[in-house]
């Protein structure tokens, strides 16, 4: 590894930009090229389903760094440019504009793309998927005139859009295929709390319901459900998950599963190629597992991890994952990964609007979801990082101060 290597980064999102910034700040002097297929400067994605939709944040404020800051980093930006292929033997990537970019090290930060609604009518005008800035702009452009919004998918994106739309006075209906909201990420009692809050704000929720298709009905749309109902809509927003962009890597013969497989140093099956961010099926040595994560925290932390590898000072990847979702006045913050939990302990009372849910495997704390309890969340992150569990009886007592369990120093 060398600070003079030519490094090409494919994907100009949070992870790709963070990598370039960390490399420069850590003394990398070699050429850095950041290639992105979107025409926009690297931008923050979380506000796309929140403050960008309300108009509170514009595209300028969404940018992670203004152009002049990027220029100071001495990063060659190639925006609006797709990568067509990786030629590992030649150490080159082929760009859509015909250029071939040579690299000493290649970093894939290709992220994910939105999962399209697998039903007739998904491509109709007024049916919007939400992933990128252009998608969010299309929704924002239509939201003003829309009276009735149907949101397909009761996950973070769908619920955040629903909350924003209710705030704008729209008539909102959520359709979720599973039997509860956010089914893959939170415990049933969190789902139930969110269902109550959304219902309390006047959102109509259909659980256990599939969309059979969408048709145009005069000026509006009609969303046909598998229970026979038809929902009139002026705008439909689909948020049913994402698919990792592994095709470039797979076609180049790199080991891929549900993501590009990398180790705890962000290295792929080719020593000259790394992968970071949403697309990386990566190893976390603190958790002792491999998985793919879609989050800002992971994008930032794994970019730093990859930068250390590229600078010849590898450090095993071991952060505590954390996530958040803002809906109405509810701040949901999640620390750790609850997969494999066999019991759940409630800390506080949902009726008070502020509580946490602790996920255990045996007596070991795996994760904590906090709703309007940021102190619990921050302490959970510190406790999980330190490998300290919280006895379930203590967790269940909201008066018990988690801080007292932190190791000294």
């Amino acid at each position: 590894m060398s600070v003079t290597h030519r490094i090409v980064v494919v994907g100009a999102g949070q992870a790709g930009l963070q990598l370039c910034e960390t490399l420069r700040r850590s003394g990398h002097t070699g050429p850095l090229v950041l290639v992105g297929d979107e025409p926009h400067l690297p931008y923050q994605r979380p506000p796309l389903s929140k403050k960008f939709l309300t108009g509170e944040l514009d595209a300028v404020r969404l940018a992670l760094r203004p152009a002049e800051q990027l220029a100071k980093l001495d990063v060659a930006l190639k925006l609006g440019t797709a990568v067509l292929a990786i030629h590992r033997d030649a150490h080159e990537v082929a760009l859509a504009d015909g250029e071939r970019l040579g690299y000493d090290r290649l970093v894939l930060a290709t992220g994910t793309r939105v999962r399209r609604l697998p039903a007739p009518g998904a491509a109709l005008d007024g049916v919007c998927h939400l992933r990128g800035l252009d998608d969010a702009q299309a929704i924002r452009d239509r939201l003003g005139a829309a009276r009735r919004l149907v949101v397909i998918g009761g996950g973070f994106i769908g619920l955040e859009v629903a909350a924003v739309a209710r705030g704008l006075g729209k008539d909102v209906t959520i359709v979720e295929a599973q039997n509860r909201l956010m089914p893959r990420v939170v415990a049933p009692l969190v789902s139930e709390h969110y269902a109550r809050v959304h219902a309390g704000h006047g959102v109509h929720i259909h659980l256990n319901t599939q969309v059979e298709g969408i048709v145009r009905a005069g000026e509006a749309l009609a969303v046909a459900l598998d229970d026979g109902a038809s929902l009139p809509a002026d705008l439909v927003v689909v948020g049913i998950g994402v698919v990792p962009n592994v095709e470039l890597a797979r076609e180049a013969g790199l080991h891929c599963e549900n993501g590009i497989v990398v180790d705890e140093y962000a290295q792929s099956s080719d020593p000259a190629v790394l992968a970071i961010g949403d697309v990386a099926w990566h190893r976390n040595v603190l958790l002792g597992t491999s998985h793919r994560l879609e989050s800002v925290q992971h994008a930032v932390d794994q970019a730093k991890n990859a930068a250390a590898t590229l600078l010849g000072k590898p450090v095993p990847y071991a952060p505590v994952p954390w996530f958040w979702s803002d809906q109405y006045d509810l701040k949901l913050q999640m620390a750790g990964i609850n997969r494999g939990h066999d019991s759940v302990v409630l800390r506080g009372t949902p009726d008070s609007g502020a509580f946490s849910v602790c996920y255990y495997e045996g007596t070991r704390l795996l994760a904590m979801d906090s709703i309007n309890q940021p102190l619990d969340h921050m302490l959970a992150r510190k406790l999980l990082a330190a490998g300290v569990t919280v006895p379930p009886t203590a967790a269940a007592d909201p008066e018990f101060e988690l801080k007292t369990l932190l190791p000294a120093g």
Partner: protein
Amino acid sequence: MPNVSFVAPDGATITVDIPNGWSVMEGAVKHGVAGILAECGGACACATCHVFVDPAWLGRLQPREAGEDDLLECTAVERAPNSRLSCQLRVSSALDGLVVHLPERQA
């Protein structure tokens, strides 16, 4: 446009113009002020945009909300009475000339 000065622990000062309505954190990040991390982008979710507000300015700030106060319990450098999260400080002409001091580290 109001300006805000960021004073590093070694005394080095960067003064930047920040549009009305933006947060102090946004202004810092967009101008490449290295001492502000802001990992969550301003969602009041990470406590990595901690600043110590110059005492002369304390009386002119909006008070902390509960969430910010809780997060300040978990900053990398221990909080002081003049600690704030810069993502929660909204720039206005009333804050033109604001001076904040940066902690040794944010994470």
